[in-house]
């Protein structure tokens, strides 16, 4: 196939389906679906969607958990030239309603009638009432999408409150999973689809498998269940897995045997604790652990850092180097490139950058053009980074999480990353507390490894070796558990309400 035909997700998939029709595309609950079968089932559904009016540039919603039907729907929507929008059925109906309105969705495909709570006025296809997902159509003339055409929409919680829909083009997905520098996905690989479909790690899982002739294994559980995770990995011989940071820490700490069959373990979404990375590497000498960093707006991964037994992290785990098709710009507030080793804000450009937000009133200054920096669209991450001597980036923290303490500008995240490196510390949260005197003090809430009595004096002394005195917390509070939100990150707001309440 000429290269210009390989610019859209479904054309690459169709090419692979012709190349190895009997290759295993999906293994789900003992059901095997070959590439040829998956392609033909998607053809059948695409033809149906076309018949009810779905066309190029439409956005079609899918309310499914992990299943073959989810993947058939995604492919069928793309074949029509439209973009898919995964909806989390468990989200509040009002939020889903707002999302569907923002995306101007006319058609929703759902596993059951539960979507009726929020999909009033839309055409809905209910999978369990139809044979649309089990019928084959050998040939379908799929839409020749351009590389800049939208492939999917994912909503992120904006800092302003209203969810923002990120429109991601075909080229961004192909850049993520094809001929890249951080992973080589082989035909023999099996990738667990464990991330919720509405979370952008699923882009890596689904297309990482299906655009590389590998096998996708949709997770068979409904909630995060350690026993199901373990049996899905073992029974299906999964080789590649993504976990969010908090779950990575928990599984590694308490349930590491679940990870045994893996070749590559990717983790991220928050700062990784090097202790747990090292535990994985020491336990499974042949495994590669990848710290994957990146905002949804630059399509799942922006930087990756690969770790093996020969390349164990010492100290903080870097977020590593740019993945293929990604240009990094570390800039100061005046858009000047900072000197190597200095902290700056991370801006990105290249084929991974999304087309923008759907709701333009929320566009803000996140996506912009500035020819002095790059000829392409630039995305501002809001993350502070610095480059180490090896040319790898270290994540310093969110730009908006900076505070002024004793006259110094301080990143609470940066203090946290040093605290979690201390002995017997498993997690931490650093906050500021205003006292009646008007002084603002730093308070570290620390979660310790089970049953160990922390030594504040020793902790302070260790911190003084790595950070300036003004960054040392004034108070240390020991909690056995910091609240974790649905994204696996420490829920700062919830935490603050419990200590103030």
């Amino acid at each position, binding site marked *: 196939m000429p290269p210009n035909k390989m610019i859209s997700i479904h054309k690459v998939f169709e090419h692979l389906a012709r190349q190895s029709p009997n290759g295993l595309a999906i293994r789900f609950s003992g059901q095997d679906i070959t590439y040829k079968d998956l392609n033909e089932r998607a053809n059948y559904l695409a033809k149906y969607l076309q018949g009810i009016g779905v066309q190029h540039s439409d956005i079609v919603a899918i309310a499914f958990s992990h299943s073959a039907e989810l993947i058939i729907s995604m492919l069928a929507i793309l074949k029509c030239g439209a973009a898919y929008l995964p909806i989390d059925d468990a989200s509040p109906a009002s939020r889903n309603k707002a999302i569907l309105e923002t995306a101007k969705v006319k058609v929703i495909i759902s596993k059951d009638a539960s979507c009726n709570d929020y999909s009033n006025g839309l055409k809905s296809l209910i999978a369990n009432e139809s044979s649309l997902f089990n019928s084959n159509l050998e040939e379908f003339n799929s839409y020749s999408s351009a590389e800049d055409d939208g492939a999917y929409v994912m909503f992120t919680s904006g800092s302003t409150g209203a969810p923002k829909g990120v429109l991601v083009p075909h080229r961004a997905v192909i850049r993520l999973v094809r001929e890249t520098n951080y992973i080589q996905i082989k035909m023999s690989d099996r990738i667990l689809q464990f991330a919720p479909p509405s979370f952008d790690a699923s882009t890596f899982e689904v297309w990482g498998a299906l655009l590389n002739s590998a096998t996708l294994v949709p997770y068979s*559980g*409904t*909630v*995060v269940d*350690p026993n199901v995770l373990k049996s899905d990995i073992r029974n299906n011989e999964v080789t590649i897995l993504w976990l969010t940071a908090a779950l990575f820490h*928990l599984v590694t700490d*308490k349930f590491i045997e679940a990870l045994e069959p893996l070749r590559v373990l990717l983790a991220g979404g928050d700062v990784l604790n090097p202790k747990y990375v090292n535990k994985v590497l020491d336990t499974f000498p042949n495994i590669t652990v990848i710290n994957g960093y990146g905002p949804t707006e630059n399509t799942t991964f922006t930087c990756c850092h690969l770790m093996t037994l020969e390349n164990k992290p010492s100290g903080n785990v870097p977020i590593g180097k740019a993945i293929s098709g990604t240009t990094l710009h570390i800039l100061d507030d005046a858009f000047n490139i900072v000197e190597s080793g200095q902290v700056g804000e991370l801006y990105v450009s290249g084929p991974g950058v999304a087309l923008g937000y759907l709701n333009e009133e929320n566009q803000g200054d996140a996506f912009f053009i500035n020819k002095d920096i790059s000829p392409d669209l630039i995305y501002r991450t809001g993350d502070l980074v610095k480059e180490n001597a090896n040319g790898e980036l270290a994540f310093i923290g969110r730009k908006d999480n900076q505070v002024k303490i004793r006259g110094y500008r301080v990143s609470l995240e940066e203090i946290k990353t040093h605290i979690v490196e201390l002995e017997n510390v498993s997690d931490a949260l650093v906050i500021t507390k205003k006292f009646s005197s008007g002084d603002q003090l730093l308070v570290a809430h620390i979660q310790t490894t089970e049953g160990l009595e922390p030594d504040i004096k020793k902790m302070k002394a260790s911190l003084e070796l790595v950070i300036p005195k003004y960054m040392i917390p004034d108070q240390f509070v020991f909690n056995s*558990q910091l609240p*974790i939100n649905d994204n696996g990150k420490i829920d700062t707001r919830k935490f603050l309400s419990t200590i103030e309440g």
Partner: protein
Amino acid sequence: MIEGSISSKILGFFREKEIMKDLTEDEDFFELGVSSLTVVELQIVIEKALGLEVSTSKLMGAPTVKEWVEVYEEKARELSVEESSV
């Protein structure tokens, strides 16, 4: 399996968590601000101690120590029936 031992073990693991140190058997622990990740952590620790496995969704739908004890006791009974019928 002696039922009393399941009960005290489970309560003990819950109470090791700071926010649940005064937890009673009938109290809904989600109301104390327990995250779903903590539920999974407790499940792993408890199952390693008891040598039993149940589904997380069952545990999520039974958010008191008393109900967890029932879930695990039921599982233990199922297993002993299976064993004796072999």
